């Protein structure tokens, strides 16, 4: 056991730092720090900066043009990017679709789609969830019927994050309605400019537009857009779900959130002293910081194990649970810290709220972020589903 960085690690960290200080524009970092919605251009700018440096596809194998970072490197980038308030990398093409293509796609598919992901030519979104399915993903109903060289797709997807920016969507669709739930599902790539695709915004409770419904009405999809074999899509979907675990705990986000809470708690006046010195607030903060210190090591242990060929499915579920709890608690503390100033509503969606709201502690939309991040224990496999998984494995297959 050794918790310290090697010489090489330290050199890499310096590289990351100088990259960030060079390429991350202060206005962009400011937006990230205050939790303001990033524009499509902001995100494209950041992807392009990383891509120029060869750091966009951090986990891809070198043969596909990836950086193939090891666990420690990924951890270092995560930590430094959070510290510098860099935008997160939009994961849908890079770390969700790409690993599936690399493992199950044809050479033609990889040759065509992967470079377009790196260049930003395609913006991908995910078509998994459906209104009737929720955590029970396998009960999905969107149908794809083969007709000659095309599938005809009908149905509805929901909770499609950043779908409003996307031109491509990867979908789970039912190709064999007679098969049992998890069989008969296929993995399909759909061009969103095809007639019959319609994107409708969902406004979340914090007033933001980040998720969407996507409707398919007789949408024609060429058969070459099928990934792998027909009716094997569930296997690919599971692979996708278990593959991308590096950031499942959100340690970087929580590290940034912690420094925000501390900064604010030093600035807020609490009966003549900084709130940071209020023992009850300080206790809440210390408790979550202790958790985060442990979580960070827990996360590193798992990344290291995965890198060494381990398959930490169980631990990934635990990381997601604890990671969401820590982050949600930190969001709670920020809104708590600012007292009555947590009440103003900075919604994009509301009339009359284009005026700036008062923000004396320079914290951005802390309350919005608190409410928005209720999602992290719901989406991507709710914490209840994660607990089911843990129980199934540890209590001997019973569930």
């Amino acid at each position: 056991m050794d918790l310290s960085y090697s010489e090489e690690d330290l050199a890499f960290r310096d590289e990351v730092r100088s990259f960030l200080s060079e390429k991350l524009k202060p206005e962009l970092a400011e937006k990230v720090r205050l939790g303001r919605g990033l524009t499509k251009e902001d995100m494209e700018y950041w992807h392009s900066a990383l891509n120029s440096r060869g750091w966009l596809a951090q986990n891809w194998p070198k043969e596909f043009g990836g950086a193939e970072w090891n666990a420690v490197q990924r951890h270092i980038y995560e930590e430094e990017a959070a510290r510098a308030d860099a935008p997160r990398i939009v994961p849908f093409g890079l770390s969700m679709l790409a690993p599936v293509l690399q493992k199950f796609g044809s050479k033609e598919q990889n040759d065509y789609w992967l470079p377009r992901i790196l260049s930003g030519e395609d913006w991908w979104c995910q078509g998994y969830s459906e209104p009737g399915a929720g955590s029970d993903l396998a009960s999905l109903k969107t149908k794809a019927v083969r007709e000659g060289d095309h599938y005809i797709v009908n149905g509805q997807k929901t909770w499609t994050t950043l779908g409003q920016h996307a031109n491509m969507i990867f979908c789970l669709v039912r190709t064999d309605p007679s098969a049992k739930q998890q069989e008969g599902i296929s993995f399909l790539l759909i061009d969103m400019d095809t007639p019959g695709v319609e994107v409708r915004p969902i406004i979340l409770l914090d007033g933001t537009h980040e998720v969407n419904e996507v409707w398919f009405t007789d949408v024609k999809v060429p058969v070459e857009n099928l990934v792998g074999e027909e009716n094997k899509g569930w296997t690919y979907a599971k692979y996708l779900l278990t593959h991308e675990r590096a950031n499942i705990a959100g340690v970087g986000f929580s590290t940034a959130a912690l420094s925000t809470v501390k900064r604010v708690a030093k600035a807020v006046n609490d009966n003549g002293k900084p709130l940071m010195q209020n023992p009850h607030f300080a206790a809440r903060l210390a408790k979550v910081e202790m958790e985060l210190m442990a979580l960070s090591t827990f996360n590193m242990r798992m990344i290291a194990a995965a890198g060494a060929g381990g398959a930490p499915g169980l631990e990934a579920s635990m990381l997601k649970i604890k990671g969401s709890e820590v982050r949600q608690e930190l969001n709670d503390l920020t809104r708590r810290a600012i007292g009555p100033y947590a009440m103003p509503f900075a919604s994009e969606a509301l009339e009359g709220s284009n005026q700036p709201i008062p923000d004396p502690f320079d914290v951005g939309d802390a309350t919005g972020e608190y409410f928005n991040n209720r999602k992290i224990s719901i989406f991507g496999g709710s914490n209840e589903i994660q607990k089911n998984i843990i129980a199934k494995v540890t209590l001997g297959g019973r569930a």
Partner: protein
Amino acid sequence: MNFNLTEERQMLSDTLRRFLADKYDTDRRNKILESDQGYSTEIWSGLAELGVIGALFSEGDGGFGGGGFDIAVVFEELGRAGVVEPVLDTAVLAGGLIAATGSSAQKELIESVIGGETQLAFAHGEPQSRYDLDNVQTVADTQDGAIALTGRKAVVMNAEAADHFVVSASEAGGISLFLVPADTDGLSIQGYPLISGGRAAEVTLDGVKLPETARMTEAGKALPVIEAVMARATVAQMAETLGAMETAVRITQEYLGTRQQFGRPLATFQALQHRMAEMLTEMQQARSALINAAGHLEADRNERERHISAAKGLFGRIGRLIGEESIQMHGGIAMTQEYELAHIAKRIIMADHRFGDEDWHLERFLALSAA
């Protein structure tokens, strides 16, 4: 001891509940939330006609109620329906201050408040005061018989709609209260919407000139009356939150009963069942704490405030639990702005940001218990 409502209160409760069930559904409320004004004039008049505002004032002040349990009964129903109309600010807070300490000329306003024609706001909190009641840097300066108010008031609820403000200011080593018409020179307002509905504003007082008749209390002596009226407002807000929690739990129970996952209703999953049982148990604690607080509004100051802080501290914890759990047990649907629960949960959770949060009341409870 007796835990039953009087017949009058039960009737008021029933009438108000029917009115709101009829007039205040999700669509209607969502339209109100999106409106520039942030509340509905029509609903406001309706509430006044029903006698809801009158029930918050004593007979001596022209109303027909005003007791702790009158407040509790009215606000539980308002909370149940997620009402965003400014009953608390106009009637309990600013109206309550006028009733408690206004001159007889000032008290003439109450009739039109009860009638629904006048809106009020209490401009007290400041950017540096957080939840402390005695931290007032706005200054009242008297020269040649004229008073000038200078300072800034933070997150003043209902400021844009208010016809009159009750404004606190520092004077004579203490705090004074003044009744200020909204159109007085030097008073300016920057309004914004609130995440749980309604609107507030930053209010700037730039040498606002007032006659001596604007004064509500003896100079520097207002703190005890502010505290007493805040206690009533806290009871109102807790009752409102309790009503909202009832709704959150009801919606969640209904959802669990109908939503199917893995081939059966969510309500059949034991992990969710037990969490629902915990929520219901905590709500009984909240209701009991509210009764304690409402039942001690007439007690002496220390006893009253100790019960208020015990209850509001508990509401902080339980409100967060109910708000977060009802969202979590729903899943994604509760994350959408237009779903009834989203609004209700926001009101429950944001209640912790008025009149002192969980930690603030914990600290205060300790101080009051040591006293």
